[in-house]
């Protein structure tokens, strides 16, 4: 019986891993740029599909992760430079632009990739069946947890230990002053948006390997990542960590004990947070 609960907790942690990689990218872009990137789900999907093609062509999964992440970072770069940058500061055009991009990406995916559910093949050496103290669990899921911890640590390092991070944090507090100090805020915006794209692309490859990619899947992913950042507090890295940990366990235990309502259960923390602490658990008053 305890065995079951250990697996449930591990499942929750796997969910948290993917939610965190998704949510951190979105929250980062929002914290600095105040842009809710509604194409985040489409970025995820495109990253996953590109990764799938790489795996299919070369069989090299780590390469797929790299390609999936970097190509979305590049897409983020181009999108920010050529389009998003032009309407900076106008809430509605910014939001609509990201919606438009998400639709375009989703349609492009329909043209180039299968319309059925597809999964990235994870090579056996990355997915051994690991048995610890009698608990059998797929090794790839442990790997996902490790990758997301590495990502969390790197993000923390970038934000708190580098000049870029200092500028980003300063930009979050007061954009005008930062630019007055001679820091090129536009460059920082672009870097952060790229980073956000990178995370979405990585999440796509991870998610496409652990679950699957299917046409239309982008909206589910977008909803989940929005729930993560609303609960955690928009712009807060710690918030993304904590809220993905909470939501992961809710999803896992919900499925085990109330599968019929599991999907709605994840909106309960969101409703509670919005009612009691609208800025999110770790968000600042905005």
């Amino acid at each position: 019986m305890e065995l079951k609960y250990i697996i449930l907790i591990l499942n929750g942690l796997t969910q948290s891993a993917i939610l965190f990689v998704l949510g951190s990218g979105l929250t980062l872009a929002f914290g600095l740029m105040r842009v809710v990137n509604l194409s985040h789900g489409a970025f995820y999907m495109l990253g996953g599909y590109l990764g799938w093609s790489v795996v299919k062509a070369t069989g090299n999964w780590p390469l797929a992760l790299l390609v999936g992440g970097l190509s979305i970072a590049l897409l983020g770069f181009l999108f920010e430079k050529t389009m998003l940058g032009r309407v900076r500061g106008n809430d509605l055009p910014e939001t609509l632009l990201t919606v438009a991009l998400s639709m375009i990406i989703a349609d492009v995916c329909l043209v180039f990739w299968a319309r059925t559910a597809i999964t990235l093949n994870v090579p056996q050496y990355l997915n051994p069946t690991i048995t610890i103290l009698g608990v059998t669990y797929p090794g790839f899921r442990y790997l996902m947890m490790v990758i997301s911890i590495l990502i969390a640590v790197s993000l923390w390092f970038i934000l708190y230990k580098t000049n870029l991070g200092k500028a980003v944090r300063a930009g979050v507090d007061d954009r005008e002053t930062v630019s007055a100090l001679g820091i090129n805020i536009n460059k920082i915006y672009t870097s952060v948006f790229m980073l956000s794209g990178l995370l979405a692309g990585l999440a796509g490859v991870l998610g496409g390997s652990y679950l699957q990619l299917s046409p239309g899947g982008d909206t589910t992913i977008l909803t989940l990542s929005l729930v993560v950042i609303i609960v955690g507090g928009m712009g807060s890295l710690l918030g993304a960590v904590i809220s993905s940990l909470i939501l992961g366990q809710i999803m896992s235990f919900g499925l085990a004990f109330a599968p019929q309502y599991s999907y709605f259960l994840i909106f309960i923390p969101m409703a509670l947070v919005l009612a009691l602490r609208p800025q999110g658990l770790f968000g600042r008053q905005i």
Partner: protein
Amino acid sequence: MTKKLYLIVAIVLVSSMLMSACGVPAVAPAPAEPVAEQAAPAVAEPAPAEPAAVAEAGKIKIGMISAFTGLFSGFGEMQKQGAVLALEEANYMAGGKQIVLIMEDDQLDNEQAITKSKKLVEQDKIDILTGMVSGDEGLAVADYMKDKNIPVIPMYSASEDITMREFHPMIVRTTWTGAQSMDVFGYWLAKEKGWKKIYQIGEDYSFPWNQSGGFMRGFCRGGGEEVFSVWSPPGSTSDFSSMIASIPLDEGYDAVLYNGGGGDAVNFVKQFVELGYDKKITLIGQSNTFEKPDLDALPVDIIGSYSPHHTADDLNTPEWNAFKEAFNKRWGRNPSAASEFAYSSMRVILRAIDAVNGDVSDKAALVDAMLKVDMTDDPRGPVSLDPTFHSAIENVYIREVAKAEDGTLYNKGIWTVKNVSQFGPYDPETYLKQPIDGNTYPPQKCSDFPPVMLDAENVYEFVEFGK
């Protein structure tokens, strides 16, 4: 800033509501697929311009609604390929008239399905409506079409009530109902394999309910004791590992029945294997669980898993082989049940149009002609149509997942039961007196079944596959 927050919250709520609408996973504001309008090779002019000028123009318009995107996009795609193949073989001609096929994507959303039906009926002035993948989709469309005097030919949509309690005379379903194959399957497992207890995990909507209903009736009639059931809404999660971890291994269940298909089945089966459960308990599926094309994404560990359907990949009849070859030639892949059903339905439509010499103005006569179409040469085996409920009487195959020489998985037939109707072995009157299948009916314990359901007059005869 608060404004923006509200905007986001609104978006989240709207999209989540869309996704949970009516228990079917709508794929929310997914990209609307550009209307795939497949007209005859040369003619491709847009439809709306001509006002009901069908007769003069000498064209017959067939509308096809399906889920080309979303959780069941695999079935939608297969369906489209089957239908188009039948049309191409006829050169888009029937009864001396040109046939125009107008396809619409409903994204597996009931509201969308009705909106698209409305568009096809009012704007395109179609003569016949076909398509539909999921059970809910079919029920919604059939209900909307009730008073439109246009024949509706559901292809893969299998909720039994379309041709039972919600039946109306313009419906002709030449394919199947959810319970039809599963009743045979459940009966076989209990009677022939001697299984007593099944643990079922199902998608919570009409088609799996109907599959479960058939399964439970057959299983209990065959001597089973219990079908314990857990339900979760389709598409609501893609991580089933917590549900899998909750399967009790020490309570004497003979097998786990996964009652779901499409993307959900891919995830479920993969995770079942990854968590090592394939070595602990037997996995069986409903009709769609191991169907192509999703079967290609499943791990080889499931070889030997049983499921029932009206097709089997290794059917070896001249009709099936010819169909398989033509399908392969046109689309570069092997056909699935969904493509066969679409091909066969479209052929019935075309043959009926032939029979009325292209005059489709009298819809009742057209429906009559469909019921009289000779379907003994159907690729999946001989089919006849029940004149009262316009539903199919056909073979059911029990299949197991096997590995072909080229390493791909396929469904290998093992047993055949011939001439199964949508009422299974029951007499229609008794059957229709029972409640509608749902997630609480039939009861999980066979001892709670009404005795009349445990004792049918007809008994299935299992014939070795291929004989």
